[in-house]
């Protein structure tokens, strides 16, 4: 129900407390946080240590896509509350990039919806990562495995 696209960092504890506040019907919350890591995934001689990432996005379409992804999750699972925060701009290793949290009466829906949201977000939300290493900058290439992960959810559960 809450979607935020922002430059500022977020406090996971504060966000999860706000998500469950006043709803005793929630029996479990599953959350995923994505962080900037310092190593390029295709480790080779060309890959240096990553000193920063800059996330670019498509304002307007980003919010629309995230809202559509969230609506899909709510249609598939009985969620009491749902939160997506995605940052843009320049971030250094260790910083938060994304937070997805799903609350439900039972854990199965929370676990499944959280994983679904991340898989779909990675293949549909219009964000692009520009990586800075000591050798310069380069755009991160999309990974086939991310598309495969999103495709697993093409057949609605149940």
């Amino acid at each position, binding site marked *: 129900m809450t979607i935020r696209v922002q430059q500022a960092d977020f406090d996971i504890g504060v966000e999860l407390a706000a998500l469950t506040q006043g709803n005793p019907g929630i029996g479990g919350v599953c959350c995923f946080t994505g962080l900037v890591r310092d190593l390029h995934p295709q480790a080779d001689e060309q890959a240096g240590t990553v000193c920063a990432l800059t996330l670019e996005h498509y304002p307007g*379409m980003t919010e629309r896509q995230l809202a559509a992804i969230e609506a899909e999750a709510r249609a598939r699972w009985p969620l009491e509350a749902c939160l997506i925060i995605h940052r843009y701009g320049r971030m250094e290793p260790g910083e938060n990039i994304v937070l997805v949290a799903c609350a439900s009466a039972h854990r199965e829906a929370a676990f499944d919806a959280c994983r679904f949201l991340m898989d779909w977000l990675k293949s549909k*939300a219009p964000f692009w990562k520009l990586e800075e290493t000591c050798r310069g900058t380069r755009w991160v290439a*999309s990974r086939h495995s991310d598309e495969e992960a999103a495709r697993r959810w093409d057949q609605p559960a149940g």
Partner: protein
Amino acid sequence: MIKLLYFAWLRSKIGLAEEELALPPGISDVAGLIAHLQTRGAGYADALSNLAVVKVAVNQEYVPFSHPVAPGDEVALFPPVTGG
């Protein structure tokens, strides 16, 4: 006029984040628009040389290359996304 938006390495190769374009006569879909853009200079030709890595959104929704384009549309060209 249509509004064109470019993101990530398409933006750097073309050298523009956005521009307005009068739709040339005879162009009615995304494929035709891309073919026209490819003739607009070396940066465009380079950015649009491998269409397997170009995604398109019209009015902020993903569309296939066969999707129509009409005056007033916002057309965005960008690489496969890498957020999350």
